[in-house]
């Protein structure tokens, strides 16, 4: 996991680099909670760019962190969620509760197409 903090705008971005399954979820959860609590920022962004694998363990993990951020009075957003993960978040209703911003991902795909 990589964390980036934008001091000026009080935005914490957490880039998750691990595969998310039942085995890894606890550890990732602990690290995320820790960062969220330390910075107590205005906005927390989870960046999914580097996630190569996620199963249903990720749903509860994301919802749990969303609740924590809300409780601390911040905003919460997911970015760069690929098609497969988006499908999982849509099926489980996560997309209806949490903002998913895929503008960056779409821009990247368009660039790739031009390159081909």
């Amino acid at each position, binding site marked *: 996991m990589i964390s980036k903090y934008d001091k000026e705008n009080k935005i914490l971005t957490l880039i998750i680099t691990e*595969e998310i*399954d039942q085995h890894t979820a606890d550890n990732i*959860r602990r690290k995320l909670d820790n960062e969220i609590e330390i910075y107590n920022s205005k906005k927390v962004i989870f960046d999914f760019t580097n996630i*190569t694998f996620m*199963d*249903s363990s990720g749903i*509860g993990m994301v919802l*749990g962190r969303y609740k924590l951020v809300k409780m601390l009075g911040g905003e919460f957003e997911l970015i760069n969620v690929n098609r497969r993960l988006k499908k999982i978040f849509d*099926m*489980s209703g996560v997309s209806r509760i949490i903002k998913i911003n895929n503008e960056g991902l779409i821009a990247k795909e368009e660039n790739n197409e031009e390159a081909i």
Partner: protein
Amino acid sequence: MKRLYDNEMKLEFSSKTCNEAFARIAVAAFVSQLDPTIDELSDIKTAISEAVTNSIIHGYEEGEGTVKIEARIYLDTVQIEIIDNGKGIENVEMAMKPLYTSKPDLERSGMGFTIMESFMDEVKVESALGFGTRVIMKKKITPKEDLKEDNLSDEKQKEDIKNTLGA
């Protein structure tokens, strides 16, 4: 007698969550002989992960036990079975409903079976209380001719599959 399948593999491992990545990568490696797309491989890996996790945390309730996987290839279709001798499911129909979970306290979402059904072509569950559970899933792998229009070159695809397997 003629066998009904073209290829087969069987796998047995301890009921420990640290074996999840091993299980899904092993099955993906076996399926890769059908030349699947990266998406098909990821679908299979996700479904395996759901079923194996269920055996470990629900079937054996994180205690001791053995999880078995059997995979068979019939022409262009792979059938994968995940088997445990754990506590079994009382009401399979209810268990398979989206959002149903018997462990809401542990940040479970009850989406495991729904994900298996959406990523595989067919999912069947056989279970008996006190004896265990068998999840049988099937997926047809797209024949290569159908992918001709795909703008991924063969080389690029092989490379991507290697990366997916390695991850």
